[in-house]
Structures are given as structure tokens and as C-alpha cells.
């Protein structure tokens, strides 16, 4: 119980810190928001009116207080550009991003787990070496370059996939594959390393001594132990993956959180920027909660105490 409360307090502090930090970063951005809203030809009166409406002339601590007070009531504010409530804009875009991310995770886990397990089993073979090279390539690829290349060759030139936008499941395949390719190498190596360690354990020898088949030894006895650290990293990696999502969504013109975030930056739309950043922060905090709970379930030696 105490643990749960501590956990909750820390999560709140993390999100508060995110909000305050984003606030200051946005304040440091040069340019007049009022000019962005009203256009460069707006009259001084209109500019003045906008300044008054959005409290742009108040001292920074007053504006911060105002903003935090608003957040405490669960209100993310309205877009300066479209006047749409920020929470509504985010909510309507969650399904696209969630679908993209889930499909990507399914794809790379489906490839990385067998690759990692089998390269650990046949370590030092040509199969292991080729995989190592490919994995290194995979984790060195820049997201925007990979997405553009796949889009150009597989969609535009060969016509195997739709080029862009989100109209059906087929439209998600290539973006999700791009995202998966960026992560699969890292996870294949991570699982490989953990599997090598697990396969050297006395309980593996004991499982073989029992008469268990190699498949069973590998995918039941060793993998279950090897996945424990992987789950942790996967949870922490949600933040890293959102970086990839940002590029991929924009390249493929998917209406998700990533395009929303990039648009709001180009529009210099502070409430929307703050909203997407806070949402991302909440997602990372939430993912860590989930990992913590799963950890207690996947590794019985850890009592979650919740």
C-alpha cells in the first residue's frame, strides 16, 4: 500500500515536472504568439486584444500558476489556432497511434523473440553472425530515411502498399513495419544476450536431464527467464518509440499523435504542444506502471506489494 502511494506521488511529480519544463521551454521560443494567431497584417488593437485574452502580458509566474490551476481541473485548454479543445484533439488521434504502435510491437516481438532465442542457441554460427550485422544495421537506421525509402520503393515504385493516409488496415502495414524494423535489431540482440546467460544456467542442464526436448528447453525454460529484463526495457522504451512514431506518422500522413505534435510545433500553438508533451509523459509513466505490475507476474521472486 505504502509502495502504491509512493509510486503515485512520484508519477505526479514526474508529470508536474514535465509540465513546468515544457512551459519554460515554450516561453523561451522567440516570436509573438498573437502574431501567429492573427496573422502578420493584424492591427495593433487586435494584437492587444489577443494579448489580454490569453494573458500574454502577465508575469511568467502568474501564467504558470494559471496554467497549472487549469491542469489541476483536468483542462488542457484550447488550441490557439483552431480553438478545438486540446483533449479532444488528442483523443480523436489516439486510435491511429495506438493501432500503429501495437501493430509495430507485435511485428518486432514476433521477429525478435525467435531470432534472439535461435542466435543464442546457435551462437557463433553464420546465422548468428549475419543476424548480428543486420541487427546493427537495423538499430543504426534513421527513422525518417527508412520510412521515406520504404515508401518510395515499396509503395510508389512497386505499388505493393498504399502510399499514405489511413483508410484501412493495409495502410498501417508499411508504417508499422518501418517502426518495427527500427526496433527489431535492438530487441533481437537484447534477447540474444539474455538467452545466452539463461542457457548457461544449471536449471537448463537440469531440464535437459529430465528429458525435455531442445524446443522445450529453449522456448519454455530459458525464454521465460530471458524475457524478464526485456519486459523492463520494453516499458522504458515506449518513450523512445514515440520518437519514431513522430517521423513515421508524418512521412505516411497518418492522423495520429505524432502528426498532431509536429503540426502544433509548426503552428506555434502552445496549448497543443503542451498537451501532446504531457500526454506523452503520461504514457511513459503509465507504461512503467504496467511493466511494474507485469514484472511481479513474470518473475515470482519479485513481490510487487500492491
Amino acid at each position, binding site marked *: 500500500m505504502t509502495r502504491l502511494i509512493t509510486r503515485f506521488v512520484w508519477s505526479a511529480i514526474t508529470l508536474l515536472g514535465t509540465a513546468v519544463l515544457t512551459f519554460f521551454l515554450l516561453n523561451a521560443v522567440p516570436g509573438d504568439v498573437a502574431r501567429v494567431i492573427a496573422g502578420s497584417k493584424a492591427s495593433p488593437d487586435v494584437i492587444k486584444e489577443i494579448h489580454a485574452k490569453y494573458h500574454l502580458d502577465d508575469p511568467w509566474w502568474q501564467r504558470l500558476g494559471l496554467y497549472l490551476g487549469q491542469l489541476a481541473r483536468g483542462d488542457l485548454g484550447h488550441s490557439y489556432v483552431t480553438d478545438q479543445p486540446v483533449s479532444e484533439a488528442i483523443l480523436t488521434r489516439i486510435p491511429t497511434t495506438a493501432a500503429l504502435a501495437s501493430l509495430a510491437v507485435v511485428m518486432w516481438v514476433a521477429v525478435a523473440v525467435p531470432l534472439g532465442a535461435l542466435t543464442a542457441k546457435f551462437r557463433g554460427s553464420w546465422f548468428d553472425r549475419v543476424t548480428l550485422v543486420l541487427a546493427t544495421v537495423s538499430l543504426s537506421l534513421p527513422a525518417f530515411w527508412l520510412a521515406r525509402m520504404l515508401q518510395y520503393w515499396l509503395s510508389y515504385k512497386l505499388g505493393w502498399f498504399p502510399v499514405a493516409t489511413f483508410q484501412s488496415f493495409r495502410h498501417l502495414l508499411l508504417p508499422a513495419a518501418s517502426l518495427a524494423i527500427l526496433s527489431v535489431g535492438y530487441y533481437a540482440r537484447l534477447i540474444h544476450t539474455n538467452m545466452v546467460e539463461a542457457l548457461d*544456467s*544449471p*536449471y537448463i*542442464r*537440469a*531440464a*535437459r*536431464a*529430465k*528429458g*525435455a*526436448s*531442445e524446443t522445450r528447453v529453449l522456448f519454455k*525454460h530459458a525464454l*521465460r*527467464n530471458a524475457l*524478464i529484463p526485456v519486459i523492463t526495457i520494453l516499458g522504458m522504451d515506449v518513450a523512445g518509440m514515440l520518437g519514431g512514431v513522430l517521423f513515421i506518422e508524418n512521412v505516411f500522413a497518418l492522423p495520429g499523435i505524432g502528426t498532431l505534435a509536429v503540426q502544433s510545433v509548426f503552428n506555434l500553438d502552445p496549448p497543443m504542444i503542451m498537451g501532446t508533451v504531457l500526454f506523452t509523459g503520461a504514457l511513459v509513466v503509465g507504461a512503467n506502471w504496467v511493466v511494474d505490475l507485469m514484472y511481479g507476474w*513474470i*518473475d*515470482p*521472486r519479485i513481490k510487487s506489494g500492491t
Partner: protein
Amino acid sequence: MPLLEIQNLQIDFGRAPNALRALDGVSLSIEPGKTLGLVGESGSGKSVTALSIARLLASPPAFYPGGRILLEGRDVLKMKAAELRGIRGGLVSYVFQEPGASLNPVFRIGNQIQEALKLHRPEAATEAEVVRLLKLVGIPAPEARARSYPHEMSGGMQQRAMIAMALAPHPKLLVADEPTTALDVTIQAQIIELLGRLRQQLGMAILLITHNLGIVGDVADQVAVMYAGQIVETAPARELLQRPLHPYTRALMNSVPGLDADAGRLTAIPGAVPRLGAFPPGCRFAPRCPIAKAECSEKIPELLEVEPGRFVRCPFWENE
């Protein structure tokens, strides 16, 4: 027919010309229901011998350039993978040195015992059978223990659970590789007593590997002493303990504390077991032997039957 017969077994680590010979012409046999104690210092090749019986050494690096391992007359070294899996656990079961590390940390005890049952006696893979096995090895509250994870049990209880798992498929040979080394002395005695009782009750043969001669006297019928990858002496347990013949066995006996108060100082054996690949020429014990002669370093002595049932690899065994 002996249950297990190892004939002139050789095991190399690595391939020629860089191969290191770990076992050099080891021969052993165990009759059904009997217990053989395999004794020697660390690095003598006891565990390698034990693991080779069900071909549990990873290959590579281990290779078998010569010899045979016959289990009920069938050569283990010629078996295909599927046949081997039937032998492992089914005919030969293992109990290892560190129970805490040999049980899989993420599965419940009952689950791990059921796995052994499913693999070899699927008709008996029930919770009731798991509880019966846990009770058989003296685990209190077996119903609750079946749901425990290994880390929730003490070392002694873990080793009992390990033994229950090994017994589950009704093996004819139990290989216990230093089963008590990692445990407290009081627990050691309990585990040895348990093994003795189970042998009586179930009529299985045991290969007990230990570096502790005292343990051997309690349970073994027959003893084989290993040194640097070779057997140097075999004899019925009682005779060997009363009158060891090989200078190495004698030295081992002198390094075990007795109960007599006036036994005097314990004598350590000078030097150490030679490293793999650095075995001396001739008799491998010669550099540490108190009665070694110049000729001992010239050629490896034969393992000879010097008295009925007593084999010694030393031509000077009659010298004190």
C-alpha cells in the same frame, strides 16, 4: 547384466590436435539396485563421468573419441536424440549440486515435478501424484509446497524437491552429483539418509558422486576413486574404507577428520590435482605421491586386480 556399464570411456574437450583429454579409459559398472560411490578431488573427472551417462555434456566442446556407455546393454553414445530424451529422466535421473540454481526460478515446484511426469509417465501426471512424491521425500505440507516457487524454500527443501522431481518417472539409476556439497552439515546427513531410504524403498541404483569419503561409507556398496581422469582404485566400500590400497586413496583417507581424539593432525595432500591438459607422464599421482619411484614417471600403470574384487592402479601398493 549390469544396469550401467562404462567401458574404457574417453572424453576430450575440443578437437584434435588441441583436444584436452578429461577422461582417459574410465570403466565402471553398477548392478541394479546397488550404490556406487565415485570419489575424488575437484577436477578429477567425477562430474564429467556422471554427465556423460545421459550425454549431458555440451558437444562441442565435449567429444567421445573412444569407449562405450551401456545402459541395460544399449550404447548411449550411439543413441539418436529422441531415444536419448527417453533415457534422460526415464531411465537415468539426476540430482545436482546446487538445488537453488537447478530448479527453474520462474515455475512452481509442483509444475516442475509434473513436467517430469508428463515427459515419462503421462498417465500419472496429476496433482495427487505430485503431492505423493513430495511426501515421499519428506516435505511437510506437500499440498502447499507444490504451489511454492523454488526461492520460497530452504536449500534442504529445494534438494528434496529436486529428488522428488528426479524420482517422479521411476528411474532405475539415480545420479547424485555432489548432492550435499551446497548444504549445511545437518541437512547433508538428512539428505544422505533420505537417499539411503529411497534406495531401499524403490530398489533403484545410485551413482553417488562426492569428494567426501565419510558419506560414501554410509550408503555405497562399491567405491571407485578417480584421479586426473582415471580410476585409480575400485573396491567394495567397507573394504576400501578399512584398508585403502592406492597411495592416493590413503592420502584422501588421512585428510578426512575422524572421531578419535588422538588421531593427530590431519594431513593435507601436497600439491594440487594437475590441470586438464597438463597431466604428468606416467602415473598421474606420482608428483604428489609419498612412495613414488623414478620409474613411476615413465609409463602409466595398469589398473590390476590385486585381490579378488579389488583393483588398484599402482604396482607398489604393498609398500607403506
